[in-house]
C-alpha cells in the first residue's frame, strides 16, 4: 500500500467510523445509567429518516431561499430529536412501566426500522421518485477545506478535511469522557448505573438520570443515523440504509469497555476493517472475514473480561435490571 493510499484509507476509515462512534457513544451513555437499550438500530433509523425529512421539508418550504447550513443544522437537530424520541419511548416503558429491557429494545428496533423506512419512502413518493436535498446542503456534509490547515500535506487530509459531523462526534466523545470522569453529574450517573439502590439512598433522582441518559443517548444514536443518510448517502433515502450498524455499535460498547476514549479507537478499528478490503484486498481472504472480525473481537473481549471477573471496565452492574424502590 502506497503512502497516498494509506492516507486515503485512513480518511475512509474515519468516515466509516463516525456513525459507529455516534451510536456507540449514545449507547455508552445509556448503559452508564443501567439501561441496556438494544434499540440502537431503530433509533439510528429514526434519526436518519428525520434528518433527511427535516432538510427536505425545509428546502421545499423556503424554496430558493435555502441556506445550506440552516438545512444541515435542521437535519442534525431533528435527527437528534428523533433518536431522543426513541430513547424517551424506551425510558417510559422500562423506567416508568418497568417493562423488560431486552424486549423493549427489540420492539424499539422493530418500530424504528419501520418508522424510518416509512418516512424515507413517503418522502420519496412525495418527491415523485426519490428524495434529495439541495447541493448547498450536500456540501455541508462532504469533505471540507479549511484554509491553511487542510493544505498541509498528509496532515491536512488526515485531520482537517472532514465534514463537521466527524468533529462533532469526537467532541461528543471528549465531552462524555469529561462528564463521566470529572463531574458530579457523571459520578452520580455511574452510581445510578452501578447501584441504583445506593444512588437512591443518597438522594439521587434515579428516574431522572435514567430518563435523561436514555434520551440524550438516543439522540446521539440518532446523529449516527443522520450521518449515514446525509453524509454517506448525500441526503437521499436508501431503503434499509442503516444495515446493521446499530448492532455493531452495541458490540463496540463492549469492545470499548464502556469508555468513550476507547470507543474512538474501537470505532476507527471497526470502521477501518469495513473499508480495509477496498484498500488491502488479499487473495483468498473474502470480504466476510473482514466483516466478522469486529464481532469475534467483541466476543473475545466479553469472554476475557468475564474470566478475569474484572470489576472495572465492565458493564454497569444494574444493566438489564429495572430498579424499583418500594419492592418487598
Amino acid at each position, binding site marked *: 500500500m502506497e503512502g497516498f493510499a494509506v492516507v486515503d484509507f485512513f480518511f475512509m476509515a474515519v468516515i466509516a467510523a463516525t456513525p459507529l462512534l455516534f451510536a456507540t457513544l449514545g449507547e455508552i451513555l445509556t448503559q452508564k445509567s443501567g439501561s441496556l437499550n438494544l434499540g440502537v438500530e431503530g433509533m439510528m433509523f429514526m434519526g436518519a429518516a428525520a434528518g433527511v425529512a427535516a432538510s427536505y421539508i425545509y428546502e421545499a418550504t423556503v424554496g430558493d431561499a435555502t441556506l445550506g447550513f440552516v438545512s444541515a443544522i435542521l437535519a442534525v437537530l431533528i435527527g437528534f430529536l428523533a433518536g431522543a424520541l426513541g430513547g424517551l419511548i424506551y425510558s417510559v416503558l422500562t423506567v416508568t412501566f418497568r417493562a423488560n429491557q431486552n424486549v423493549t429494545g427489540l420492539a424499539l428496533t422493530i418500530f424504528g426500522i419501520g418508522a424510518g423506512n416509512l418516512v424515507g419512502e413517503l418522502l420519496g413518493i412525495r418527491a415523485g421518485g426519490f428524495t434529495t436535498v439541495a447541493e448547498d446542503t450536500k456540501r455541508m456534509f462532504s469533505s471540507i477545506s479549511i484554509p491553511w490547515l487542510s493544505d498541509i500535506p498528509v496532515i491536512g487530509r488526515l485531520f482537517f478535511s472532514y465534514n463537521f459531523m466527524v468533529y462533532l462526534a469526537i467532541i461528543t466523545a471528549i465531552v462524555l469522557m469529561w462528564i463521566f470522569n470529572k463531574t*458530579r453529574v457523571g459520578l452520580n450517573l*455511574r*452510581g445510578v448505573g452501578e447501584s441504583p439502590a445506593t*444512588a*437512591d439512598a443518597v*438522594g439521587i433522582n434515579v428516574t431522572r438520570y435514567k430518563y435523561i441518559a436514555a434520551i440524550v443517548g438516543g439522540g446521539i444514536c440518532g446523529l449516527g443515523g443522520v450521518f449515514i443518510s446525509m453524509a454517506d448517502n448525500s441526503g437521499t433515502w436508501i431503503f434499509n440504509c442503516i444495515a446493521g450498524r446499530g448492532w455493531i455499535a452495541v458490540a463496540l460498547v463492549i469492545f470499548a469497555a464502556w469508555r468513550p476514549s476507547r470507543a474512538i479507537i474501537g470505532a476507527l478499528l471497526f470502521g477501518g476493517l469495513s473499508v480495509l478490503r477496498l484498500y488491502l484486498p488479499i487473495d483468498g481472504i473474502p470480504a466476510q472475514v473482514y466483516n466478522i472480525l469486529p464481532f469475534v473481537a467483541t466476543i473475545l473481549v466479553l469472554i476475557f473480561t468475564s474470566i478475569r471477573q474484572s*470489576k472495572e471496565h465492565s458493564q454497569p452492574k444494574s444493566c438489564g435490571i429495572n430498579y424499583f424502590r*418500594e419492592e418487598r
Partner: protein
Amino acid sequence: MCHGIFFDILTSMSEVSNCAVKLNNISKSFGTVQANKDVCIELRRGEILALLGENGSGKTTLMNMLSGIYYPDSGEIYVDGKEVIIRSPKDAFDLGIGMIHQHFKLVDVLTAAENIILGLKGSVLINRKKLASEIREISDKYGFSLDPNKKIYEMSVSEKQKVEIVKVLYRGADVLILDEPTAVLTPQEADTLFEMLRSMKNDGKAIIIITHKLNEVLSLSDRVCILRKGELVGELETKDASVKSLTEGMVGRSVSLEIQREAGALGKERIIVSSLTCLNSDGLKALDDISFKLHEGEILGIAGIAGSGQKELCEAITGLYPVEGGSITYINDDEPSELCGLTPTQIAKKGVHLAFVPEDRLGMGLVAGLDMIENMMLKSYNNEKGFLINRKLPKSTAERLIDSLEIVTPGVSTPVRRLSGGNVQKVLLGREIDSGPSVLVVAYPVRGLDINSSYTIYNLLNEQRKNGVAVLFVGEDLDVLLELCDRIMVLCGGRLSGIVNAPTATKEELGILMTHMSD
C-alpha cells in the same frame, strides 16, 4: 394513641428538652403484614438511643421511614419540633438525618471519596484534593483513619462501615441511625466503633442504634426503646435497665420454652467432623480446623455472631460448599462413609438422608414463584423413573403438611412467595422433616417469625430429636439455644471456640465464647 400516662409525661418533658426527632403514631404495613403500628418515639440531641427488638419486630422498617426509604401509611414525623414529610432519602439528608444500613449502600467500583460525595450538590467539577482533606478532617475529629482514594471493592467490612459513617457526617447529618452496626464486626472493631459513636454523641449528635444485642444496649446507649411485633412496648433510661427487663420487653414474657428435654447419655455418633477447613471466595478461611461429633437424638446448637462460619458449616456438611481440608464422616450402623467432596445428589445416592433448612428460605430452600406441590418435589422429583414428573405424591405431601402443620394458604397451587414468613418456614421445614432424615440441619429457623410460629418450629425440632434424628441447629437467640439444645457449639471467626453442655451453661459463658479470639 400513645400508650398511657407515661408517654404523656415524656412528651411534655421533651418540649422543653432538646428534642431532635419525634415520631408520632407511625404505622406501616406491607400487604397484610403490619410492620409498625402507632409507634411514638423521640430522640434528643447528645444521646444514643438503642432501638431494641427481635428480628422482625419492625425496627428497621421504622427507621427506614425516618430515612425516607419507606413512606408511612399514617402518623407524623417532627424534626426540631416542626412537622416534616420525608418522601425520599434526600429529604432525610436535607433534614440532617443519615442512616447507615446493615447492608452497606456503597458503589463497589467507586472510591471512598466518590461514594462520600455521591448525589451531593456542589460545583460541577469534583475537587478531589479538597474533598480528600475534608474527609481526613472528619475522620481525625472522631479518631479514625480512612483512605479516600481506595476503591470500595478493595475494602474490609469495617472500612466500608467507616465510609458509610463519613458519608453521613459529610452530608452534615446530626441524626445518625445505625442498623445492626456490629453484626459484621470483630469485637475490637466494635469497640472502636463505640468509641467513635461516643465522641459523636459528645459532639452533640443524636444517634439511634438498631440492635438486638443486650450487651450493646447496656454498654453504649443512654436510653432504650423496645419494639415487639411492630409496636413500641417499652421506653426506659439505660441506667434503669437490666438484662432481665430488656429481655422481657423484647419477648413479652419471661423466657421459658417449657421444652421437655430428657437428660441422659448421648446417643450413637452420627456425624464426625474433623479438622474441617473451608475457604471463602477471597481465599480466606471461612472455617478453620473445626472438629465435633453430632449424635443421634441430640440437638447440637451452634451459636456465634453473624458470619462466624455458620452458613459455611451447614453448607459444607450438606455438600453445597467446597471443602478445603478435613473430613465429614457419616456413620450408619457403625459403617462410616465419607461425605467430603460429594454433591448433594451423590450424598443422597449413598443412602444418607440429610435434610437442610437454609437461612435463605425463599432464595435457597424453596422456589418462591412455584406452588407448594412443586416445592414439595424439589429434592425428590428425580427419585422416580421416567421423563415426566409425577405430581401425585408431592400433592398428597403438600395436603398432609397443610393439615398437620396448620399452614395457612389459599391452596396447594398458590405460589409460596404469597405465604407469610411463618407459613413459608412451615412449608420448608415440613418438607425436610417429611423426607425422613437421619440428620437435620436447620439455620435460623425462627428468624422473622412470630412467637407462635416459633414455638411450632421448636416443637417440631424437639420431636425430631425424640425420634432419634441428629439435629444441628444454628440459632441466634441464646435463651432458645440454652433451652432447646443438648449441647451448644460456639463459633467465632470461623473457628470453634468451645462446646458447652446446654442444661448447665449460662448466657454469659456463651457470650464470652462468642467473642473469644483464640490467639
